[in-house]
């Protein structure tokens, strides 16, 4: 296992934590937590094999969060001295005091065992140890290869993040963590007559290091070799006839449908209305726990903070709760929500399942998504076998456009590639396809899921939620799955053309 970087451990972590927690206690806080974070992010963007822009930025700072007289108070700072930290702790207490007249629900937290430990995510090569020129050269070579095969333009990007976090609270928990994630992506573009289109690699972002670009976890050369021909076929493909079709959805597309229609819908803060004015609420209201038929009986969904290479995997969350795996949908029925410590206690659900997360030192933790994943069927079919069970349908690969309403009922998704399925076989690509459904109708129409060998972890770096806005990385694993009778739109017709 890799170790946490020495220069982070060399910061006066415990001394600063002691100063914050002591000051908060002196000022009467019932609970206090200190979090010091360094988030480093490097992004490269190439266009037509030339470096167009790069940024290498970090965010180093700390936060103090308190409960004073039953009200939250939060303050963040950047000066890493005990005196400055104590002052910020006092600000957090002041914020709680100023806010108290607005608070009608006293804050209490579910109990959690005291933890002391270190956790580092699974990766081999720290991407920040690789020279910029090597990364630019690799992306440039890949881009040149696509241009040489007749595409008009290529954009390439590589996002890399290293997140280091120290946490200590007044209960005695002290944890230190480091995790790394990367997301390489290439998009080929081409014009045919008066039509232009593009196609992006399906390689998902992952909780891995630079080894992901050099053969571990994804075969980029193989995917890139196919991209120009696939794009050329897409440009001349027939436009879809709007109607109702059976769908087989590849994990490269289904992860996003899971994210939007299950992941967000089973966040308890949404179900309870805390996101009502912004991200929205959820049709999966708390009174339906253990009774709502979310999907067909073959639907089993877990939340998981422990998945290897998962983007939302952690040792402990930002309330000091240990990472866990838990059921959300079992045999088609809603059986669980994603929780933080306050909501777990409020709703009598016992221990939090560890879903509190802050994206930076300047933001408070809010309830954020675990790696929410659709489980494969034991001895389940392959994608080809799923396709063989469709007479007139569409096979969907890759994510592109997505949108869902504020209660997670009505969604519409497009993709990178759509293939017509005729009598159990693929019959060429289609253009201008979007699928549109209501969440429970869609998941109840699922009549088959693939086996364990078809399971793939997809995901995103940038799930947005909360005010002030926060972004969080999250993975979603799933096999391919088959859905019956889904509404398909022709996007050109939708545009009135």
């Amino acid at each position, binding site marked *: 296992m890799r170790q946490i970087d020495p220069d982070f451990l060399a910061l006066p972590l415990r001394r600063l934590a002691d100063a914050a927690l002591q000051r908060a206690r002196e000022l009467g806080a019932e609970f206090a937590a200190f979090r010091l974070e360094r988030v480093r992010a490097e*992004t490269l*963007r190439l266009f037509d094999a030339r*470096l*167009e*822009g*790069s*940024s*290498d*930025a*970090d*965010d*180093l*700072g700390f936060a103090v969060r308190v409960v004073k007289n039953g009200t*939250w108070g*939060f*303050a*963040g*700072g*950047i000066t890493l001295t005990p005196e400055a930290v104590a002052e910020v702790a006092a*600000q957090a207490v002041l*914020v709680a005091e*100023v*806010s108290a*007249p*607005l*608070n*009608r*629900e006293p804050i209490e937290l579910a109990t959690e065992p005291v933890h002391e430990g270190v956790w580092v995510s699974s990766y081999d090569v720290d991407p920040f140890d690789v020279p*910029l020129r090597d990364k*630019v050269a690799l992306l440039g070579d890949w881009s040149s290869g696509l241009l040489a095969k007749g595409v*008009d333009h290529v954009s390439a990007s590589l996002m890399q993040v290293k997140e280091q976090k120290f946490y200590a609270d007044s209960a005695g928990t002290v944890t230190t963590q480091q995790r790394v994630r990367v997301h390489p992506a290439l998009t080929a573009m081409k014009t045919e007559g*008066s039509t*232009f289109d*593009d196609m992006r690699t399906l390689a998902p972002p992952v909780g891995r290091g630079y080894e992901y670009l050099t053969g571990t976890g994804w075969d980029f050369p193989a995917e890139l070799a196919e991209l120009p021909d696939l794009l050329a076929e897409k440009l001349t493909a027939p436009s879809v006839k709007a109607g109702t079709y059976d769908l087989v959805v590849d994990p490269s597309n289904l992860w996003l449908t899971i994210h939007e229609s299950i992941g967000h819908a089973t966040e308890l803060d949404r179900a309870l*209305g805390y*996101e*009502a*004015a*912004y991200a929205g609420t959820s049709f999966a209201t708390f009174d339906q726990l253990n009774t709502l038929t979310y999907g067909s009986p073959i639907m089993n969904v877990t939340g998981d903070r422990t998945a290897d290479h998962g983007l939302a995997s952690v040792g402990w969350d930002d309330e000091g709760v240990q990472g866990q795996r838990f059921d959300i949908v079992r045999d088609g029925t809603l059986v669980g929500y994603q929780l933080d410590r306050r909501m777990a206690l409020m709703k009598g659900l016992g221990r939090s399942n560890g879903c509190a997360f802050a994206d930076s030192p*300047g*933001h*408070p933790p*809010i309830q954020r998504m675990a790696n929410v994943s659709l489980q494969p069927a034991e001895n389940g079919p392959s994608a080809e076998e799923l396709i063989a069970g469709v007479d007139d349908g569409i096979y969907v690969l890759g994510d592109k*456009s*997505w*949108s869902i*309403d*504020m*209660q*997670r*009922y*009505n969604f*519409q998704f*497009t993709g990178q590639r759509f293939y017509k399925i005729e009598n159990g076989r693929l019959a060429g690509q289609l253009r201008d396809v979007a699928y549109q459904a209501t969440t429970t109708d869609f998941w109840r129409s699922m009549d088959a899921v693939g086996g364990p060998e078809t399971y793939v972890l997809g995901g995103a770096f940038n799930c*947005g939620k909360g*005010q002030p806005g926060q972004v969080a990385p999250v993975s979603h694993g799933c096999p391919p799955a088959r859905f019956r009778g889904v509404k398909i739109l022709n*996007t*050109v017709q*939708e*545009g009135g053309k």
Partner: protein
Amino acid sequence: MTPQEVVERALALPGADDRVVIVDEDTSANLRFAGNTLTTNGVARGSRLTVISIVGAGTGVVSRSGVTPDQIAGVVGAADQAARDAQPSEDARPLVAGDVAADWDRPAEETSIAVFRDLAPALGEAFAAAEAGGRRLYGFAEHLVNSVFVGTSTGLRRRHDQPTGRLELNAKSPDMTRSAWVGAATRDFTDVDIAALDATLAQRLEWAKRKIDLAPGRYETLLPPGAVADLMIYLYWSSGARDAFDGRTVFAKPGGGTRVGEELAKLPIDLYSDPARAGVECGGFTVAHTSSREQSVFDNGFTLGQTKWIAEGKLANLIQSRHSAEVTGLPETPAIDNLIMEGPAGGKSLEEMIAATERGLLLTCLWYIREVDPQTLLLTGLTRDGVYLVENGEVTGEVNNFRFNESPVDLLGRITEVGAASQTLPREWNDYFTRTIMPPLRVPDFNMSTVSQAN
């Protein structure tokens, strides 16, 4: 050290042919509430040093937060090394020349939790009134102040202080089946009238007591200024000159070039940005922390003035840097942090437009707006927090929500009425863009693609 001293020290170090130094000082305060009670709150402070080093035609950019005086040389050294390692930058050109601005020496402005000293009690009263009136209030108040200091090795020194405030208020009935929303953009919260906003919410919840089911279809629709802002911001973000020139956007001309000069709207609509526009004032010079399709680090300090994107209904300019202007042959028109849309003089208020409507839909706002097809800029999204039926000049009830599929570019050509413009807060994009002045619009055939069960 002051930000100005940080800039000078970073510029004075040897190791690069040229250098741009940007210091951002940020402070923020926020209150969030739900169900007539506070949920989260906070204050935060940030400081960021960005060093852009130029060695030959290579560029290196390194940005670090919380930099102490003894760390400045390390950040500069890292940027210099990145520049030496870099390929020649396509956008390389002489840095913008300039002198020291008269306000350069002023300290950075700040905000604190005290900015809510009047707002917090007013909210508390609104919570009590809502509780008594059978309403639940949800929402968010935030105040940010960014002070940015830009210095270059060519002698240019510019600074700008940008206050950004926003308030969102969402009222719901206790059973959550009725919902209404209002928002306000502000510089300092002194102009925010909570009681008046709450009264608007109460009226809209009353409208929503009569429910009417409507099927999907194309309806005459009144878009309020906030909804117009969300659609026009997406159009603005999609108007990069380089992407259009490369044939990748709705503003690409088939066969090559851009659609600049082409008529987009039959009505004489102007869509423009103006850093000096009262109420939505913003920075008057370019600040670019990294280069991209639309901006260049070499343009830091470039003076910005009023820029028409659409003039009298015709596409007039596209967003671009000095570099891409050379490529496209179009004027140098970098992005500006506000957006204004206006129609012919004498436009009606939204209330007057409602009164002049025989049968149509009145929207509150649009949500979850995403691009479906870049060729037409077809967008999808949802109506949210109140779609009202207008009959014979009056609101007669609330209809269900819809998913829409519409292109703001196509829509410009179908608008039949442009109302009087006013400052508004966009709903979808106010995390990123708050400074807008927009009119209400009448669209004869807005495409409501399907019904959303959400309320």
